[in-house]
């Protein structure tokens, strides 16, 4: 089964990194096939940015997302651009503080995770993407929690592992509560 995930926000939020961490977790630490691709503008910060991950039990031919099963959205622009692209029966995980204006989308489950605010409470807004990954892990169960933690350790700057793993756990707890109600 092929699962398509699209992370979107603006440059500087760690959107591309989130995709790499997820794909590497699924592939190297999870034993599945995975590929990450990206799309971004010429600006390094502030421009629209998206990162896509395919996870599959079999070899992946086409590496781009055509109809995402899951959207992880961290900006209003990303929401406006992509919210409608999600597959029927799919899900959207979003940061409600970054996306004040939502519309009704039929047949799609929405999970609201205030990741940016939670990261600020941790003292580092920059780990908002990792908070989101924690929530993503708990809500979707697509990638193994421990595999994601290994992948985070392999992908974050040395010396920030502890902060990032804490951010991940906080997100995971928040996500778990959302799912369990």
């Amino acid at each position, binding site marked *: 089964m092929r699962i398509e995930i699209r992370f979107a926000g603006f440059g500087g939020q760690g959107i591309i990194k989130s995709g790499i961490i997820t794909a590497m977790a699924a*592939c190297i630490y999870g034993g599945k096939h995975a590929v990450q691709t990206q799309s971004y503008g010429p600006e390094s910060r502030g421009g629209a940015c998206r990162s896509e991950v395919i996870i599959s039990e079999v070899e992946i031919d*086409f*590496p781009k997302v055509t109809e995402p099963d899951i959207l992880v959205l961290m900006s209003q622009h990303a929401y406006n651009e992509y919210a409608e692209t999600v597959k029927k029966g799919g899900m959207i995980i979003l940061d409600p503080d970054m996306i004040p204006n939502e519309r009704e989308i039929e047949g799609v489950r929405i999970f609201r995770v205030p990741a940016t605010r939670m990261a600020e409470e941790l003292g580092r807004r920059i780990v908002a993407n990792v908070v989101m990954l924690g929530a993503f892990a708990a809500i979707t169960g697509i990638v193994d929690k421990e595999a994601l933690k290994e992948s985070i350790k392999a992908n974050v700057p040395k010396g920030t592992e502890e902060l990032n793993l804490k951010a991940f756990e906080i997100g995971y707890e928040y996500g778990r509560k959302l799912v369990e109600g």
Partner: protein
Amino acid sequence: MAEKKAVLTGVHFMSGDIACAEGAIAAGCRFFAGYPITPATEIAEHIAARMPKVGGIYIQMEDEIASIAAVIGASYAGLKAMTATSGPGFSLMQENIGLAVMTEAPCVIVDVMRGGPSTGQPTLPGQQDVMQAKWGSHGDYEIIALSPSSVQEMFDLTVEAFNLAEMYRVPTLLMADEVVAHMWEKVVIPPAEEIKIVNRKKPNAPPGNYAPFMPDDDLVPPMACFGEGYRFHATGLTHDEHGYPRTQDSDVQMRLVKRLCDKIRKNADKIVRVEEVMIDDAEVVVVAYGIVARAALSAVKKAREQGIKAGLVRLITLWPFPEKHVARAAEKTKAIIVPEMNCGQMVREVERAAKTTPAYHLPKLGEEPHTPLEILEAIRRHS
């Protein structure tokens, strides 16, 4: 065999650009000169970090013209040398690519294609430089160009590019695209002893008797490098077997230019590589390369599921063009579809090789490569 300490044997999750850099180092590349440009910058960035650890040299030059010039110099000084760029830089390099052809300097040039012309779309993929790869520099010549479709191939084909460059003393081009370069995927780097490495032929003759451009039977002259005790002259001017300019001599010009072409043309069967998928009974064959070939493979599989006999010829070698493979596929099929991220370039070569079998071009320009569905629809239309 590759040098052990330089090869990161193991399973990795890497981007295409990083895999290309690692492929170069595994192949024995110890000199890189370049100028940063999206989407090739990460090759330079990674090599800058790795080169000092393997005793190699990384130089950021003032521009792409100087970069390729430095690479030719390094090659003549005996190192395996590479540069990496994108369309605008590739254009600047063209004159000196001709110098590398004429002086038969083995080297590798990576062009990570983005949307053009001019500065075009810096962060988005294209396949618009494939004819420039063949014809970009003035004069008559043959060149080798490879097209990777995966991150694994960014590693494997970079190694292959060095081997071909060394074997035929010709600049070898790795024509990647933004998607393959920026995509992250699993890469398996084999043990050093399993990586085949080719080094340029050295002369057997003593310095006094060495004719630097006297070819062997394979049309490739053995190469002495500067500093090895052989004194010789290398020039971009038409030169005889001793390396001296003979610009007024039509026989020398004929002999030299014909050999530069023939050393590739006559060895084409050994150089050319394609991947053929389900073509034996195919009624429609897709010919594709680079990232587009992945969409094409998906489309071909979907077509088969729907009972349409479709097949794929994936061009791994772009130049010399895999004429025989395309001709063979064309003989048995009703139609050929050529999806490309340009307005119609390799399709002309396909048409030429396919003779009476019609080849339909499927252009795509802008943000993304073709989707499998777009190619599937074309297969349906022509099945």
